[in-house]
């Protein structure tokens, strides 16, 4: 692959495991997942709670909390495998080439340190600024993320901020890093609806300004539709579908994605769409290049008793996790 076409972030066959409480064997929470994020691209990562979204995101900065660990796979940031880096190389990636904002902004700030010091130390540390310059840069950055009265906020402690304010501070910290890749892990969880909209607007605005790549994890399909170019759908630790955002909403293929998209409330319809009702989603049969596949919701794989699943490209840039169905002639033989 040439320099030009190399994606900024390529996750290849990633598996992450946590030890089983009873016998200590590794139980995978993310299995064999592969996707890419290109430069200046906004990719959404969706799926229900526990589907492995956050674990996937954390592993990109190698923040998987022990005893969890990456079992298999590669995470390439501009061609460099993050999983193979030593501590010094890793610290040059974190807060520099890639940064992350977290689900709970208020607990993500050190309760005993003023906001000014927490933002300022990124400047002194990553940019080698003098203390005074770092202080000025901090105020400027706080202003840029829409904080009125930055001096007052810089002097306060995290517990004195509202959730929305704290998330703005987190965004300011991330921006101070000036990363090529930003991972935002449900950045508006626990915020008021109006504040949520403001935070997403801010993130989107910054992305358009800086052209950084953004991997956005959220439950909010409305936000996905508005902000993202491509979407990665996860279910129970598996990536089940990757599609351009329009395709995903107009023509979802995988049964889980159909259910997910079908669950969007449509005020213009009087009844829930058929997809939102019931739990039963039949496997979808696909024909690609003469081969037959069936896409099965991950929670019913056991009952279907199928072989090894693979990502099948049903259209350019549109991949679905499916199992090969043997051709009838071979089945006879």
């Amino acid at each position, binding site marked *: 692959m040439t320099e030009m076409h190399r994606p900024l972030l390529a996750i290849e066959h990633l598996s992450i495991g946590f030890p089983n409480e009873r016998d200590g064997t590794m139980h995978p929470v993310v299995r064999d997942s592969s996707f890419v994020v290109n430069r200046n691209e906004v990719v959404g990562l969706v799926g229900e709670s526990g589907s492995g979204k956050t674990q996937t995101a954390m592993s990109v900065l190698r923040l998987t909390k022990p005893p969890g660990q990456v079992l298999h796979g590669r995470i390439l940031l501009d061609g460099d495998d993050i999983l193979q880096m030593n501590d010094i190389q890793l610290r040059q990636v974190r807060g520099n080439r890639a940064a992350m904002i977290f689900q709970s902004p208020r607990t993500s700030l050190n309760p005993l340190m003023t906001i000014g010091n927490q933002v300022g130390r*990124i400047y002194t540390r990553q940019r080698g600024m003098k203390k005074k310059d770092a202080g000025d840069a901090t105020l400027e950055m706080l202003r840029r993320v829409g904080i009125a009265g930055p001096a007052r906020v810089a002097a306060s402690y995290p517990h004195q901020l509202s959730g929305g304010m704290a998330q703005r501070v987190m965004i300011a910290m991330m921006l101070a890093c000036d990363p090529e890749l930003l991972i935002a892990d449900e950045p508006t969880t626990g915020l008021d609806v109006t504040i949520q909209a403001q935070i997403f607007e801010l993130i989107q605005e910054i992305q358009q300004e800086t052209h950084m790549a953004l991997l956005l994890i959220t439950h909010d399909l409305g936000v996905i539709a508005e902000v993202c170019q491509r979407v990665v759908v996860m279910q129970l630790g598996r990536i089940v579908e990757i599609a351009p955002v329009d395709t995903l909403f107009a023509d979802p293929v995988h049964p889980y994605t159909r259910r997910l998209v079908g669950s969007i409330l449509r005020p213009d319809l009087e009844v829930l769409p058929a997809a939102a009702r019931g739990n039963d989603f039949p496997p979808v049969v696909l024909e690609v290049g003469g081969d037959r596949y069936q896409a099965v919701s991950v929670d019913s794989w056991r009952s279907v008793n199928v072989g090894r699943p693979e990502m099948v490209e049903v259209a350019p840039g549109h991949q679905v996790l499916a199992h090969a169905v043997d051709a009838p002639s071979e089945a006879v033989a």
Partner: protein
Amino acid sequence: MSLSRYILRRLALTAITLLGVIIAVFLMARVLPGDPVTVKAGQYATPEIKEQLRIQMGLDKPLPQQLATYIGNVLQGDLGQSTRSGHTVREDIGQRLPVTLELALASLIVAGGIGIPLGIYAALHHGSKRDAGIQQLAIFSAATPVFWLGLVLIYLFYARWNIAPAPVGQLSTNVEPPRTITHLLLVDSLLTLNWTTFKDAAGHLILPVITLSVVVMSPFIKMARTSMLNVLGSDYITAARSLGLSDREIIRQDALKNVMVQLLTVSGIVLGYLLAGNVLVETIFAWPGLGFYAWNALTGSDYDAIQGFVLVVAVIYVFLNFFVDLAYTLIDPRIRLA
């Protein structure tokens, strides 16, 4: 709420607690078995003499009046007369408190100075063999009987190898005590640059300090380890990591201060225990401190002295708690407004 208002409010609460302590000590003396008059007058005193003494001691008055008199005396610093030493209890305790304080502070510094780094080290190597070893050490430390350890140390270091000085008091008899400045021998001899005294005082301190610090090291190890693990697992440490800060920077700038906040309470409790609870160690090493004094007072039915001891220890506890709370407000910004 401003800091000064907070301090005022806490002080007011402390005053109420102290009043309760005084009343409790007063009542305790009335329920204790034995009659103070008999003790004071001696076994062979006639009933007339006893009655006279009873009136003299104010014990014929109704209880509330006695209580009022007692509170008045205590507030004026009058804790009564020791029947054993012949001095006022106030003099006796004033003399012995710094002796105990020196031993307690030295033990606190040694126990904390070793226990806290050990606990933090264990947390940083969570799950390793070293972690398990340090936890074993904490259990061993908590399970060691203080009198046994003290005697073993005396046997080995004094009787067997003769490295340590005789376990009798703070100074050898042929060594001149330093000029009194802080009442702490070690500090005073250092301030007056009196090396001979300093070395002798330090020598006498070593064994009792080792004995006490081994015993109180356990809570430091355990609390430091637990709170460090807590802090390391918290969101803001993950966030700091994601910003590219090194482990050393994270531990120094983020983790330690948060751990110290949690260790303040332990330090307060341990210091309180050291000031009040080392009767055994002071007796073994003939250390002329509060514990030794209390032991003698108890065995000699020296009622005023016992009351004085209990009162002073209770007051120390109350003030320690007050200072720990105060230290919290200075370190943790969340408490000031709460």
